[in-house]
């Protein structure tokens, strides 16, 4: 249970801004356990998206990074796409608008799994069925604008898990969707992660959404880590005033969780 996947020590990220620099993460220490579902919560500007990009090695080249990200859970430096899958906030923007959905998924399967064109297409079809896209054969030839917001996010998830990564990072993956679709996508992520034994990092500003299915919660504020702990403990007895405030502003204690998952 407590085998470490990643270990962040004193991670500090600064962006070059118009005037001087902008500190996006300030001395972050965090361990990520293999197989856990970790929710990273914070308001915009708290550094949560920077954390996601830093884990994937996707920060822009002009970013200044200090500290270390160790990967004891991997034999070598994990590769984005192959070892780490990403789901972004706006699937409408993160899918290429002029390329058919099927090709965007087969591209990944061919690159990382070395599949033939035909095999990759079969895999894409299976993936679309796996994320419960109705009529996957038609969807393969569809362009992103022809799908609904929820379907697009399902496609983005299929693309993210196409190469069977062991870590899935969802960066505000549901915040652009309406509440019902949001719940469906969270349920899908939850189910996929369980079935495939993936580790999930779920980044959100919505503490209610996270509390429904995360094992552990990390709270970030102004580039710093505020508090971390198992979901039940953190929600029941927040140690920091900020966490308590965040909880108070988002949910009454009697609000039922959006997703009926049992906290592990």
């Amino acid at each position, binding site marked *: 249970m407590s085998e470490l996947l990643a270990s962040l020590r004193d991670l500090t990220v600064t962006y070059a801004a118009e005037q001087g620099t902008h500190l996006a993460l300030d001395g972050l220490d965090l361990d990520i356990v293999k197989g856990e579902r970790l929710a990273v919560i914070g308001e915009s500007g708290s550094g949560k998206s920077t954390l996601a990009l830093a884990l994937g090695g996707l920060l822009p080249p002009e970013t200044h990074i200090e500290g270390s990200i160790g990967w004891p859970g991997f034999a070598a430096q994990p590769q984005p796409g192959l070892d780490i899958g990403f789901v*972004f906030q706006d699937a409408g923007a993160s899918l*290429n608008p002029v390329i058919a959905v099927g090709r965007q998924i087969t591209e*990944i399967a061919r*690159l990382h799994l070395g599949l033939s064109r035909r095999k990759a297409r079969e895999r894409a079809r299976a993936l679309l069925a796996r994320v419960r896209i109705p009529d996957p054969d038609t969807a393969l030839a569809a362009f992103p604008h022809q799908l609904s917001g929820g379907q697009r996010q399902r496609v983005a998830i299929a693309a993210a898990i196409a190469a069977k990564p062991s870590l899935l990072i969802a960066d505000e993956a549901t915040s652009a969707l309406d509440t019902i679709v949001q719940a469906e996508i969270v349920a899908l992520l939850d189910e996929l992660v369980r079935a495939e034994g993936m580790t999930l990092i779920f980044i959100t500003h919505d503490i209610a959404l996270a509390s429904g299915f995360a094992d552990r919660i990390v709270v970030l504020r102004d580039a710093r880590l505020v508090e971390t702990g198992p979901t039940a403990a953190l929600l029941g007895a927040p140690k920091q005033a900020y966490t308590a405030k965040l909880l108070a502003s988002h949910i009454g204690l009697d609000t039922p969780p959006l997703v009926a998952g049992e906290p592990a």
Partner: protein
Amino acid sequence: MNRALRLLRRRLVSSIPVLLIVIVGAFFLLELAPGDAADAYLLSIGGGDPALVQALRQSYGLEGSAGARLWLYLTSLARLDLGWSVIFNRPISDLILERLPNTLWLMGSAVALSFTVGSLLGIVAGSKPGSWGDRLLSTGSLALYAVPSFWLGLVLIVLFSVQLRWFPTSGIETIASGKEGLARARDIAWHLALPVAALGFIYLALFLRMMRTGMAEAWRQDYALAARARGLGHRRIAVFHIARNALLPLVTMLGLQAASMLGGSVVIESVFAIPGFGRLAHEAVAGRDAPLLTGIILVSTVLVILVNLAVDMAYALLDPRVGANEVAA
């Protein structure tokens, strides 16, 4: 394909008022110009007495009101009759049909050259915005874009025809060479090399700059980051994901530049003495042949409309989003 056809129909309908406005404008141009069809005919038969002039005017319908004359003009245009050229003493439609292919070859080759080379170099520059190669190409293309095409043509003649003697200075093919088939095609290509370069280089610079800007813009889009997150290589993202999106505005620009390119070919054909459509315009102006010039303007307008239709179709093929919401529009 239904989508593209719907779009085609809509564009065809919207180009009708444009064509009508241009025809009315052309009519006024003819009215303003000294002389009319009767004078032109008289000139061609070597003059005549006032009685003949009067009779001719009557038979041509030139005595009627301006409205009647406009109606006459419209009906003759509908029969594809563009009138009679004073200086060539021939039907204008024959002249234009004879000259048009040369211009289409010139323009087509210039478009092909500028579009392919321009967008390829744009991909090179835009795959690493801000890099050394990017700066060189961007600055170079801006300088090239500032060059007047006719002057570039003269410089090319001085360099490659007068100094190096690689290419001929003028004409579309070797006169009375008796060449046929492939040999003739090679001869024409050899003659067109410099004019195509002179006309195409300016647009090459334009396309390069647009492609570069479009690529820099596309790199900032979410799908570029998402492609990196999927582990795709830099080159793969640049060519397969970024360039495809950056190409779209270029296609639009191709349509927008069709008119300017036709104008540019007037000067280029004059520089290289290519017996084309543009040179015909220059000859019409020099000979004060208003009907011929008007006919040229009308035909070039139709040509621009046709090019734009083709461009719209190409765009619809490249961008699946176009026309998808036609029902709403």
